[in-house]
């Protein structure tokens, strides 16, 4: 079994998943818009775009800001649930032993079979926001924003995959795993500054947010919301941080997943 087979299996699984579960497909398209509409609707009901700009401290378009935030929040959640949570899923349906004894390390199997799903889902969600971006920024500006967000989706995925695999290895070693996963996800999103920029947090929270790869992915995607062209230096810096974190988190996940596998097999958790 080659790596290509793992990638292909992930892609085919998704295509059939969509084919057989239309409600899931429709809901996948509907969720980002519902979230965005609620956030903006409530925001404009209680306040204004001017207050938003003054609170955020930059000249940003609130609609594009929340499009970028919603998109990355959805993508990050997907990675955390699908890579981290897949361990649980395999355990529940009894296929975890097969994943553990497969020729590749568990972390590689989880990550490689997930990549097509992530790219497919995230780019489908990005494409549904293109009309909104063009409406806000015009054709050229809208397409440029789409490119920046697409870049954030791809680059942001690299460290997040390792991060989620570490999460998965942690879940292998603990009890009450679903309970942990469901409250840890919103904490990660809050600390990453998903809808409220991390630079506005108190110092202790800012320190924690600096350790999370999602913080930089949100910042990168939200550069598209700045009025005028996003600064290239800032973009390069964020990309460099994300690439550095990719190396760190993926190396860590490779080590930790092996240990967690051994521990799970030893304790009979599988």
């Amino acid at each position, binding site marked *: 079994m080659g790596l290509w087979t793992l990638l292909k299996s992930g892609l085919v699984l998704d295509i059939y998943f969509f084919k057989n579960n239309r409600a899931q497909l*429709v*809901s996948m398209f509907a969720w980002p818009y*519902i979230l965005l509409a609620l956030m903006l609707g*409530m925001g404009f009901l209680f306040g204004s775009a001017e207050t938003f700009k003054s609170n955020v401290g930059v000249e940003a378009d609130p609609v594009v800001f929340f499009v970028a935030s919603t998109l990355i929040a959805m993508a990050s959640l997907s990675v955390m649930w699908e890579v981290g949570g897949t361990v649980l899923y395999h355990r529940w349906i009894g296929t975890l032993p097969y994943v553990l004894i497969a020729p590749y390390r568990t972390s590689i199997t989880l990550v490689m079979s997930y990549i097509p799903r992530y790219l497919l889902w995230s780019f489908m969600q990005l494409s549904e926001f293109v009309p909104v971006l063009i409406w806000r920024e015009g054709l050229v500006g809208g397409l440029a924003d789409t490119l920046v967000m697409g870049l954030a989706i791809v680059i942001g995925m690299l460290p997040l995959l390792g991060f989620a695999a570490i999460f998965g290895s942690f879940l292998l070693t603990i009890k009450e795993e679903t309970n942990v996963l469901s*409250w840890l996800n919103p904490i990660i999103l*809050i600390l990453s500054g*998903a*809808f409220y920029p991390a630079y506005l947090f108190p110092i202790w929270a800012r320190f924690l947010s600096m350790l999370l790869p999602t913080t930089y992915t949100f910042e990168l995607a939200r550069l598209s919301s700045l009025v005028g062209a996003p600064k290239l230096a800032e973009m390069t810096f964020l990309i460099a941080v994300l690439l550095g974190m990719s190396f760190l988190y993926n190396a860590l996940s490779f080590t930790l997943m092996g240990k967690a596998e051994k521990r799970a097999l030893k304790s009979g958790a599988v």
Partner: protein
Amino acid sequence: MWVKVKAVIWLHTLRLWRYGMSFINMILSQVLWILLFIMGVLLFVPPEHLTVALRMAYWTIAAWSVISSFSSLVGGWTSFFILMGMVEEHLLRNTSPFTTIIGRVLTGTTVSFAIMIAMGYAFSWIFGRVLMTVERPPLILMAFALLIVESLSYALSISATSMRTSISEQFLEILNFGIIGLLIIPVSVLPEYARLIYLAIPYVAPTYMIKVSVGGESPILMREAALISVIESILMAFIALRLIRSVEEHIRRKGVRAVGFW
């Protein structure tokens, strides 16, 4: 009958106790998700309006948490109940499966009020504002009681429907989430002719009464809202009971669907 009621209360109390971690997790995660969402909304709010906006958002979400908890903990639990083969077990013992499902009102009420209290304390601490004060306590109790009747009726209706035909859980979730957007609109921002129509939408009138009782809305339509809430609650309960009867007759003759809720 009393023995059955006692057994159902015992079952759900015991389950709530044994799934203690799930209970805590449900409250914690819901509060965190709401916090994540609210933080984004607050970016639009000028500092001088923060208290009013937070109070409005808090009480609207408190009302929504009752609706949401009932729909997932009563309606959604039916799926588990069916998969465990409990419907047949109940029918064999000449007991309506809905007796046990209605007992989930205990879980729904406990979870939703625990979320409300946890959220109130968390938000008050984080944002440094007092949110949980009430100006008219009897009114808020009445409004929550009516909201519980409406939510339970809706939950039982989808529970009964899911025993005859599958229900898409994703659409229910979308509907569930979309309700917040509906409840948050203040009556005062609507044109006069649309206000009564707006109040006639299920859940809106009791939520308006909650907002009035905490001083978040003007009480100009209080009488109308109370009347609409009572009529709607009776009507929704009646529809739910009729649906339960017809579904029970159907499943006694033809059996339950193997998979509900999907």
